[in-house]
């Protein structure tokens, strides 16, 4: 019996091909737009976190608890305080890196400017920070170099190039002055503003310059998958025996970035809500028409003894099939576009790029292939369809065969 009903529902859909086609395409089109918008936003979210977070801040970072609001060399760590190998073994952790970050006045002749100083481990960081791709001139560092990499913007400002020397002056450990002369080994180009004044040197040399041998400012933990963050955080917390250590997620380190991204995601939610509202009205309109069109038929069926529950079952099946086909098409049509942009993100140029950088994001446009975005939005459409269908349920419950058959 049920099978017959499902067959009936299926045939009902195709009684009016044009309408079926229009309804399906309106659902599919709206889902397509929403998917595109949301996948693009979540991709941006993910991409920005990966780029700004994974290399410099870390999904998770361990610091001395005093370093949290006082970022000075006195508040650094030593390797005796943490067992890094144990953390490396935790599932989901793709890398553990010690970092030395500070700042110094960089000058030559009349020109001096403050720059962030980054002590990096050339063996791992060249890849992690994508320095190989960002190198515009010269060569990358090797671990024992007594040399620095600077940004192209700094080179323009100081009018220097590879082979020239810059003076660095900052504060070292326990009141020492950190001052040194370094030759430039290479020039880097970063798109986002925060990196515009940045000096890179081997971590060993940075520790030496700051009179802080074997100390580092933080331990950066990279993850295989950002979704594992809460679980990994718990595991690491267990390993941290020293009460002076503080484990923080990137969200705690950079609350501004987190909120900026959330705001962006929320604005997307509002736009999706508007589109869904319009889709909802579209579906509701279809349902109202469907009922009016078949009022007579429903009356006849009811009069010859078809139960109300059966009528409701057939109609609901029909509507469910209709919206499912729409959802399926929406996903299928969106997929190739999303897949393409996922593999080939567009790099923006010119003023548009500057405006995006001005907002603190990287000037790239791409789309994600996040399963939960596909599922959540598909489900949203089905729920909207279900809510709209309640109209026909009420009408069918109250159906009066005699009235309905009067044309």
């Amino acid at each position: 019996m049920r099978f017959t009903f499902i067959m009936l529902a299926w045939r009902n859909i195709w009684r009016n091909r044009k309408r079926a086609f229009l309804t399906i395409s309106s659902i599919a089109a709206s889902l397509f737009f929403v998917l595109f918008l949301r996948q693009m936003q979540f991709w941006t979210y993910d991409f920005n976190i990966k780029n700004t977070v994974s290399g410099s801040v870390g999904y998770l970072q361990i610091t001395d608890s005093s370093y949290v609001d006082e970022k000075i060399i006195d508040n650094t760590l030593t390797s005796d305080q943490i067992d890094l190998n144990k953390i490396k073994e935790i599932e989901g952790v793709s890398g553990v890196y010690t970092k030395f970050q500070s700042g110094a006045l960089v000058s030559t002749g009349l020109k001096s400017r403050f720059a962030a100083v980054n002590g990096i481990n050339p063996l791992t960081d060249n890849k992690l920070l994508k320095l190989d791709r960002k190198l515009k001139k010269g060569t990358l560092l090797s671990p024992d170099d007594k040399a620095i990499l600077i940004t192209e913007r700094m080179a323009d400002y100081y009018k220097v190039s590879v082979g020239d020397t810059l003076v660095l002056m900052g504060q070292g450990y326990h009141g020492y002055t950190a001052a040194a002369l370094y030759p430039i080994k290479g020039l880097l180009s970063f798109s986002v503003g925060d990196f515009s004044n940045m000096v890179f040197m081997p971590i060993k040399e940075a520790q030496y310059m700051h009179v802080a041998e074997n100390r580092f400012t933080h331990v950066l933990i990279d993850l295989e998958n950002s979704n594992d963050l809460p679980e990994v955080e718990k595991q690491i917390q267990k390993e941290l025996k020293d009460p002076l250590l503080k484990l923080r997620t990137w969200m705690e380190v950079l609350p501004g970035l987190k909120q900026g991204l959330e705001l962006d995601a929320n604005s997307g939610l509002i736009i999706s809500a508007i589109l869904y509202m319009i889709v909802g009205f579209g579906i509701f309109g279809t349902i109202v028409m469907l009922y009016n069109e078949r009022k007579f038929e429903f009356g006849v069926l009811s009069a010859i003894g078809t139960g109300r529950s059966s009528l409701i079952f057939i109609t609901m099946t029909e509507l469910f099939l209709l919206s499912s086909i729409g959802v399926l098409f929406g996903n299928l049509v969106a997929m190739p576009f999303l897949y393409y942009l996922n593999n080939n993100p567009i790099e923006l140029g010119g003023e548009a790029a500057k405006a995006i950088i001005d907002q603190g994001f990287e000037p790239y446009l791409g789309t994600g292939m996040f399963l939960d975005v596909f599922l959540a939005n598909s489900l949203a459409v089905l729920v909207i369809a279900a809510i709209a269908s309640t109209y026909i349920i009420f009408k069918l419950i109250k159906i009066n065969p005699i009235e309905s058959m009067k044309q």
Partner: protein
Amino acid sequence: MNTIIKIAWRNCWRNPLRTSIVILSIALGIWSSIFLMGFSTGLVNQRVDKMIHLEIGDIQIHSTTFDVDGDITNTIENIEALAKSLKSNEDIHSYSARFKTEAYAVSPHGQMGVKLLGVDAIAEQQVLNLETRLLEGTFLESDNTYPILVGKKLAEELHLRMNSKIQLNFTDPNTMQVSKNFKVCGIFSAGNEAFDGTTVFVPKETIQRIIGSVPIHEIIIKTKNETQADLLAANIQQKHPENLIESWKTRYPEIAYGVEMMDSTMYILMSIIIAALLFGIINTLTMSILERKKELGILMAVGMKKWNIRLMIVFESLVYGIVGGPIGILLGYLTMQYFGNKGFDLSGFGEGLESFGYDPMVYFEIAPQYYIIYTLYILFATFIGGFYPSRIATKLNPIEAIRSI
């Protein structure tokens, strides 16, 4: 013609529920477009406004070499003549000449690179309204010989409070490194982390004491009529070609571009919303035609011309736009009035917004022409929306149509 319009109007109301749904969805579509537009315009304009009034002024003057070299010797040329002409210019409200250099700020709790501005407190307050954003202290009014005004973000980073000491290091014109201790006399919050974290103000006299002169690197100007800033900048530039005179739009193109980008984003969103609406309109009209096959067949059989039938259906579609559009516009207008006065609270995102210079309270704004643009847009859309269904109608065969149930 009149008859056709009348028939179309009545046709629409033969099924009031269905028509109402379409009209309501059009109204909501328009309303949400206005809402988004008003919100984004308010957000972006407030940011630009804030930056002009608290951070950058309407027009800025630098030496032509300032952006290239950017060191302490790139001072403004011919400063006396320039000052004289600025003073006598009637379109200028006020101007402030500043000493500006990169400095390295150190406190016992940290270090930061900052832009050191040596200013005349009175002139500066006439151009910028930063004194309205003081959290503590005064705008450089202090008994101290070396007072300094710092931003909230910098104060947080370096753990500065009122009367805290902060050391500034910079290179003087003779390539000597100078360093001097200043005492915090005030803390401001312009609500933009980039500015609050990297800008410090000191009185010109302190610069005089430290390096023996006050080189001027930057002049910021407040105009009497903000909209004429571009023109005025070009005017001054013509008279003083030895310096670089730029309106904020030229100096900070990324801020100006943000406004433009928002505009195009809004058009794209509007088009997506209209596209979604179009499906609804076409769907509804197609339905109503298939329902009326018999009737349309009779109309054709009794001699109604095909293009009259098409016209009738296009008019039906237009009714949706003509009724739904104004309702949406009215709703939108009321929303604009409400949130334009009361503001829309986004303080839940306070820090994220502030780090990019946005205000957490957004006052909606919309250029009036958008009401007209949106109305025309929706009328055009409903007109187009009537075409496909009307084609179905004219393709009917009268005999078959009459026979159908």
